């Protein structure tokens, strides 16, 4: 009996010291999540009410577009870009006016920020999410004339249809250009209130001229919410290529 007890104590004692575990083999692979897998029914059931509520919100009709509003670039403009810059200005200006008692001069956004077109027909809540999935906020920068010149130089130099609002008339001829803002010739000694979003203001898309402005006002207004508010406000959603930017060789 004593012998057995000793034997047992030895065994148990040995079990308590950490066994020497050694990693002898590793295998690694990638598994596809596709139609070969059946969905987990409980998870599917759990998602369903969330999906349905979201669908109801997203499919809500807000207005009608008689034509496609697209990113296709014509004279460094696009119908979707013009729509976006103008509606941002229209929705943001009253907010800014309330805060600062003055008007925004114009709006510049980036073409890369528009992630989807709006097809003609019924425009729904989901369209605003498709066009603008990001949580960008509208900000107003007070810029010196020199910085606004940098802005125009950038626009002319990059040759991209970055959305710019209709208060601007930019006539590009070769590498040269003339600009008007609010119907008046651009004044390099002036200051301007330019509407953009926080992503661009902090240097996104290489728009460095927005950094360190004379004054920065965050409107606490998501760019997508501005679009949604506009879609709710209008019955007919439309935009066209106009003379805000002209390009002659």
């Amino acid at each position, binding site marked *: 009996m004593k012998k057995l007890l000793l034997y047992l104590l030895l065994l148990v004692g040995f079990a308590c010291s950490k066994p020497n575990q050694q990693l002898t083999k590793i*295998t690694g692979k990638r*598994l596809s999540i596709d139609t070969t897998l059946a969905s987990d029914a409980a998870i599917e059931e759990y*998602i369903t009410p969330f999906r349905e509520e979201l669908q109801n919100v997203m499919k809500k009709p807000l207005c009608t577009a008689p034509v496609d509003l697209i990113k296709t670039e014509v004279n460094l403009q696009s119908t979707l870009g013009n729509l976006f810059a103008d509606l941002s200005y229209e929705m943001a200006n009253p907010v800014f006016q309330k805060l600062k008692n003055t008007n925004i001069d114009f709006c510049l956004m980036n073409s890369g920020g528009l992630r989807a077109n709006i097809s003609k027909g019924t425009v729904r809540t989901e369209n605003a999410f498709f066009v603008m999935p990001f949580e960008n906020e509208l900000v107003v920068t007070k810029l010196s004339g020199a910085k606004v010149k940098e802005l125009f130089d950038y626009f002319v130099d990059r040759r991209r249809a970055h959305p710019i609002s209709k208060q601007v008339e930019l006539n590009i001829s070769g590498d040269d250009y003339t600009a008007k803002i609010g119907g008046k010739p651009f004044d390099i000694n002036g200051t301007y209130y330019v509407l953009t979003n926080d992503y661009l203001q902090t240097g996104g898309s290489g728009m460095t001229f927005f950094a360190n402005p004379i004054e920065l006002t965050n409107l606490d207004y998501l760019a997508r919410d501005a679009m949604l508010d506009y879609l709710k406000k209008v019955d007919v959603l439309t935009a066209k290529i106009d003379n805000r930017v002209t390009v002659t060789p």
Partner: protein
Amino acid sequence: MKRRTFVKQLGGAASLAMLGGAGLTAFTEKKQRHITILHTNDTHSHIDPFGPDHRRNANKGGVARRAALIQQIRNENPNTLLLDAGDIFQGTPYFNYYGGELEFKLMSKLQYDVATIGNHDFDNGIDGLYKQLPHAKFDFVSANYDFTNTVMDTHVDPYKILVRDGIKIGIFGLGIELEGLVNKKHYKETKYLDPIEITQDITRKLKEEEQCDLIVCLSHLGYYYRRTPDLISDLNLAKATKDIDIIIGGHTHTFLPKPTIVKNVADQNMLVNQVGCYGLYLGRIDFYFDEFNNKTSKKTTILVG
């Protein structure tokens, strides 16, 4: 230790026989232990599968399918861990509308064990992330974000240690530099610390103090940056450190067909893996442990693909 005292205090013949029987089985079979690690990254709120008309990912992905696959693997091996390398948020209206609630709830249902934090997880601000924490029944790790003076303070650990089948697994997290990537007003006072220094510190702790059998790094640093090769990345981290068995990465949406084998600073092979994004794939790594009487190190066979 408790068991030893128990036996000493006992002494009755009947009890001894019972305990003896249990002891003997444990010793006669030197069983192989098997830990499975499953992982995702950059799921970006992709809850439903892609539709049939999607240009690149038609009919791929979907959380309910992922759940079925995970369950199937757990049935094969109950000693399975499920990890995520960040950017759980942002990418579908589910995030815009529910703010990440459903993402966390589903990951909890799928029994994720540990996740790290990606830059997009700050998209509703650090307060927006904090607000969703009650829905997450899994842990967040980040060793190089210092959340002092933020709402996330005390809600994120540098590392977690999980024990499965007697195997001690240390899991630590690394996040990407937020400055220039995330608006300061979103990450607030979060401080970014040097990933290599932190890793040297943490791996020493996990290996020497905690005696972990397996060390996993959940990283949102990005796989590798070809244009800025010196920038910290998973491949650079792997080469500059030791004692990590696998870096599970994210951020760069890198679709690795199989894990990359990298030699660490101590000239030992280890793995770096990343499974793209949007829940299109699940990474699976199986670790097999054998018991030996002596401490001489045995060779580890690595099979990938």
